[in-house]
């Protein structure tokens, strides 16, 4: 009788599908994964230590580099934390602009994440190219307001760096015309494609109660059927004024995560439309472009979190009354969403492992910090 032998292989750190420098120490029995240990830290730069040396404002551009796909959302979390610590009020218009940017970020992140996921399944980048096309449009908008495509560095304590430019709104409205077509097309490509169904249905199941215990966030948590969205659970900024649905899955497999991401793009588009409708009302307000460059918060600690496209991004700040944070901790969604990876991959094939990793949607800049 043929006896199969357990084999240890290293997937990564240099591997086409590890989404960065990430290593998976996989024990396989034939093609079946029996054990997986994620190994990372290759991008570790002790971001939190660096942040303790910088002033509060100087940390803002560093947050861009955490999850370089969603710089705006990272900015938002950090700005919120400092504002909470110091007690700064944000003008209404700035809040609307912030939400607008963060929701655009969500669309671009999901467009890219789905593309990369399908790439991991072996498609030759068509879905990714479609996603990237929409992403580029959004990045064009980001560039026109913030000056950079990825490292936006756009939020300031108590406002945003610059007001919307004159051509921003018309372009955004054009983009929103294309958005439903894009999302429908993505859905047509992915939703009923038999190959994709075979690759994603029943793969990487994370049951509902385990998803909670594993502290996963974002689409991974919602894909498992937990309707937990911070925008809804603990509304921050102006989210309590906006109507949107929270999509959840029912099984918790890769397919559910895909469906949830597609639907979240729709909901983000809905939010953006509402923001556009409500924004003129806030026109009177200012946006505080250069407000509070040098903050000196009172002694205390604060935890602020936002729902980034990848999940809950939290900043825990401890202030000693000086202009530099005493402790600066990032609760990164990609990092925590990696926790169940090893257990989720167990019992599946090596090819599924890659797909499961893709469905978590990690960015190593955030995992390693």
């Amino acid at each position, binding site marked *: 009788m043929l006896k199969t032998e357990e084999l240890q292989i290293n997937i990564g750190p240099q591997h086409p599908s590890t989404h960065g420098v990430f290593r998976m120490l996989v024990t396989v029995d034939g093609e079946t994964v029996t054990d997986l240990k994620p190994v990372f830290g290759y991008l570790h730069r002790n971001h939190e230590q660096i942040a303790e040396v910088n002033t509060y404002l100087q940390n803002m551009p560093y947050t861009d580099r955490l999850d370089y796909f969603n710089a705006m959302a990272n900015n938002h979390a950090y700005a919120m934390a400092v504002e909470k610590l110091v007690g700064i009020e944000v003008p209404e218009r700035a809040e609307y602009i912030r939400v607008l940017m963060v929701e655009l970020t969500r669309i671009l992140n999901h467009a890219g994440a789905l593309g990369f996921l399908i790439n991991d*399944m*072996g*498609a030759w980048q068509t879905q990714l*190219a479609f996603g990237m096309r929409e992403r580029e449009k959004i990045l064009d908008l980001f560039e026109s307001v913030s000056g950079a495509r990825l490292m936006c560095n756009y939020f300031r304590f108590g406002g945003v760096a610059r007001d919307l430019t004159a051509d921003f709104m018309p372009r955004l409205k054009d983009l929103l015309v294309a958005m439903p077509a894009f999302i429908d097309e993505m859905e047509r490509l992915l939703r009923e494609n038999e190959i994709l169904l075979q690759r994603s249905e029943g793969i990487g199941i994370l049951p509902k109660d385990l998803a909670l215990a594993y502290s996963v966030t974002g689409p991974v948590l919602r894909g498992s059927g937990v309707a937990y969205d911070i925008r809804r659970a603990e509304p921050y900024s102006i989210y309590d004024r906006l109507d949107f649905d929270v999509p959840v899955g029912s099984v918790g497999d890769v397919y559910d995560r895909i469906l949830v991401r597609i639907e979240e793009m729709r909901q983000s588009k809905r939010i953006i439309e509402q923001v556009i409708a409500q924004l003129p009302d806030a026109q009177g307000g200012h946006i505080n472009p250069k407000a509070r460059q040098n903050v000196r918060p009172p002694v205390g600690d604060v935890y602020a979190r936002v729902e980034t496209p990848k999940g809950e991004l939290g900043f825990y700040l401890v202030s000693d009354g000086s202009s530099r944070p005493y402790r600066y901790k990032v609760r990164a969604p990609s990092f925590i969403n990696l926790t169940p990876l090893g257990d989720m991959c167990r019992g599946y094939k090596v090819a599924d492992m890659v797909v499961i990793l893709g469905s978590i949607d990690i960015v190593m800049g955030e995992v390693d910090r």
Partner: protein
Amino acid sequence: MQDVVNQVINTSFGWGWPSWAIALIGYLIVAALLFGIAPFQMLFLTLYERRAIARMQDRIGPNRVGPEGMFQPLADGVKIFTKEDIVPTAADQWVHFIAPCVVVAPTMFMFAVLPWGPGMVPVDMNLGLLFFFAISSVSAVGLMMAGWASSNKFALVGAMRAVAQMVSYEIPAVLSLLAIVLVTGSLSIVELINYQGGLFISTRDVASVPDWGLGWFIFSPVGFLAFIAFFIAALAEGERTPFDIPEADSEIVAGYMTEYSGMKFGLFYLAQYVLNFLLCAITSIIFFGGWQGPGVGWLYAQAITPVNPQGGWVFNVLAGVLGVFYFLTKTYGFFFVMVWIRGAYARLRIDQLMDFGWKFLIPLTLVNIFSAAIWVGLTKWGAADGLAFVEGWSPLVRWAAAFGVTLALNLGAYLFLARIFAQSQDERARQDDDVLEQLTNVA
């Protein structure tokens, strides 16, 4: 070709060379020609694929080197030639070295039986189709050698996958062709093409049909199902998406090619694209009539052939050009379909691939062989073969009856198998309840 060489040497120059020398020269010229054409096809197809897939992704594709990127493949070739050839220390040097050659050689062999136009076949073997597939299976040895000699886990796994895939998908490919062979009653590729004259109905089935060169097999239910099955199997044989599992870059980096660089890597690449070309060509020949098309048959009838020595050489040229044009158009059309599929789909998993091949494709092709037998019986057999009731039917009625029966049979089989297959996949995806029950009881 011998005719031309004979014409030139013995008639024009009057040297009076013996026949065997003429034949040898003729074969050598043809071989040299094909040897030149094969890499050219690879160069062309890489560019073609990149441009086509770029268009599908709203991009333009390589368009810098030369007009419209025409010389991009040459630039790539130069790059590959000048790259350092790296052989891993732990590799088996000789096997590592020979493997690419073993992979490339069969693809070159396969050109020997490929008809390009009317009367333009290097060797008209009466076992051409069998030869084609027998030789194509040899490259599996080369892949195995490459995977083993690299002494790399990814390479070995890739080679294993490649060989398993090739071996198991050769079965549906051959079975689907068997249906066609059953209908034509010949394994000769030339004969297969000749069979496909007509207009939607082959002239061999119904003699009264005008010969427009459009009596392709694709227009019959048997041929259509065989085409679907064969094309899917061809995708798997050629390691194209969604069956590019042996080189699944997201799992096993580059499969058996992982440890190759420079020209050896280039040879694998060459073999792959030439094989893709050949598979597209054979698909177009078997199901879409190869060089058959409106006008070719008529032109060729006027040309100088052994049957018709009084023809005009102009018609030879015209028929050849038109035939090659039709043939290449269809072939590149199929390559476009390959690219199209690559642009649209993800990749299957290895076990799903095997499932698909064994549980869906092979039953389907078996049913198709049954259909083909019905087709042959209804269109060709008579009372002498035990089919008395067809006596007296007109050929068209017989053809219609065959069409109807096989269509119903094939469609029913397809839907039935699709449902069963989808269900089995669904069950695999769901929790294996029985196993859990068992385990619960044990615990």
